[in-house]
């Protein structure tokens, strides 16, 4: 119970800080919208090819914009040595990590919720045909992205080049998650439900989330204290 409360306390603190400063969310949202806009200029929105790659475009925008949110996650703790005080507190490293991951997850989902209708308009696609399945894909893939990004955010927090190191470390690990998300989103945006062989991609997302969440919870103490 204490673990859960401490986790939610950390999440609430991060969200409150972000809502007050709007540092990451403004940058991330603007970046996502700009990418979607530029892609819409680069590809003809009426062509079938664009429809076939729509899932890829969408997740590229989410992944690029997401890294701006994730970068701030632990960097926010650096002024006044706040990270030291969190590490010195009795909060388990796993609770600290999951609290931060929850806050990042909420912020990423908020960005995605704003970008999705914009994406529909720019690319002339209907993404509301299977809203439940699309929501499931978004929730699963975003959690995968959040978990990996939050761990690497902790790992790179003390590096001077952390803004560069985070995406360099994070994107290769995210390849399976992004591949599944892109494939499934393309199917759903095309108006088809997820059935048959495509369910394997959904299983891949679930497996990715379970494996990387478990690894993160096990390793985070070593990542934070060394």
């Amino acid at each position: 119970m204490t673990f859960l409360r401490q986790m939610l306390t950390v999440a609430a603190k991060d969200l409150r800080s972000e809502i007050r400063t709007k540092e990451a969310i403004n940058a991330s949202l603007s970046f996502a919208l700009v990418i979607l806009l530029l892609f819409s200029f680069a590809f003809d929105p009426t062509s079938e090819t664009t429809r076939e790659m729509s899932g890829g475009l969408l997740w590229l925008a989410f992944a690029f914009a997401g890294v701006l949110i994730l970068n701030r996650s632990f960097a926010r703790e650096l002024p006044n040595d706040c990270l030291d005080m969190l590490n010195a507190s009795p909060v388990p490293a796993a609770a600290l990590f999951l609290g931060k991951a929850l806050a990042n997850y909420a912020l990423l989902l908020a960005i995605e919720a704003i970008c999705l209708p914009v994406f529909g308009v720019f690319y002339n696609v209907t993404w509301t045909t299977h809203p439940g399945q699309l929501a499931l894909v978004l929730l699963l893939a975003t959690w995968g992205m959040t978990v990996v990004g939050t761990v690497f955010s902790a790992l790179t927090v003390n590096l001077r080049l952390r803004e560069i190191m985070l995406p360099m470390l994070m994107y290769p690990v995210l390849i399976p998650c992004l591949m599944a998300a892109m494939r499934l989103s393309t199917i759903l945006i095309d108006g088809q439900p997820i059935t048959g062989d495509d369910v394997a991609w959904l299983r891949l997302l679930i497996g990715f989330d379970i494996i990387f969440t478990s690894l993160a919870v096990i390793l985070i103490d070593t990542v934070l204290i060394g």
Partner: protein
Amino acid sequence: MSALAVDGVWKFYGDYPALRDIRFTVEPGQCTALLGRNGAGKTTLIRILAGLSRPTRGVVRLFGTDGVERRTRAQVGIIGHGIGIYDELSAYENLKLFAELYALPGAARVAGEWLERTGLDRVKDGLVREFSRGMRQRLAVARAFLHQPRLLLLDEPFTALDDRAIALLQGLLRGALAEGRTVLMSTHQLREALELATHVVLINRGRMAHAGVRTPEMLADPGYLYRVHGEA
């Protein structure tokens, strides 16, 4: 059982030994001044004691348990080089946050009480980034004391404090010692530290130069300790 036992602690940064075979104990209720010149290894040692860094070799035990264990950390209060509070939160939100992280019952009440004790209750809803340096320091002191820690680890606690914050911290430390709590503080302000200290540990270039009771000679002449033990 010692409040703090440091047994053969070494810390290497690359090939450089920042700490070499440090050994001492601090008994409950003692106030120990951890002294040494700049670069002696005081902050490194305090970070290890606080569980923020692992020793390369050796063992640290707090109240007979592994100092790295998070359960043990609930009994430790820390003032480090940074104030450890969030600029974008209010004074009240900061203290309530730490009270909740330390799982204190009645976190809101505890936060309110400490705001009052530190004279910050009138600005409790003000964001910390708008506070003066002195106010921020008093808030940091409240943050370190609010969970009534059995052991206080203070790294240069008097540095850059204004008069009011120094008086507050000295009062709180005297109160904590009167209640039998244990204090270990590193400092360059020898006079303030030696007035409170019952014991002294001197580190010289990563090696322990002296550990023992604070004597009247040290209090009368703070430079005495360095002259006798510190320049080897």
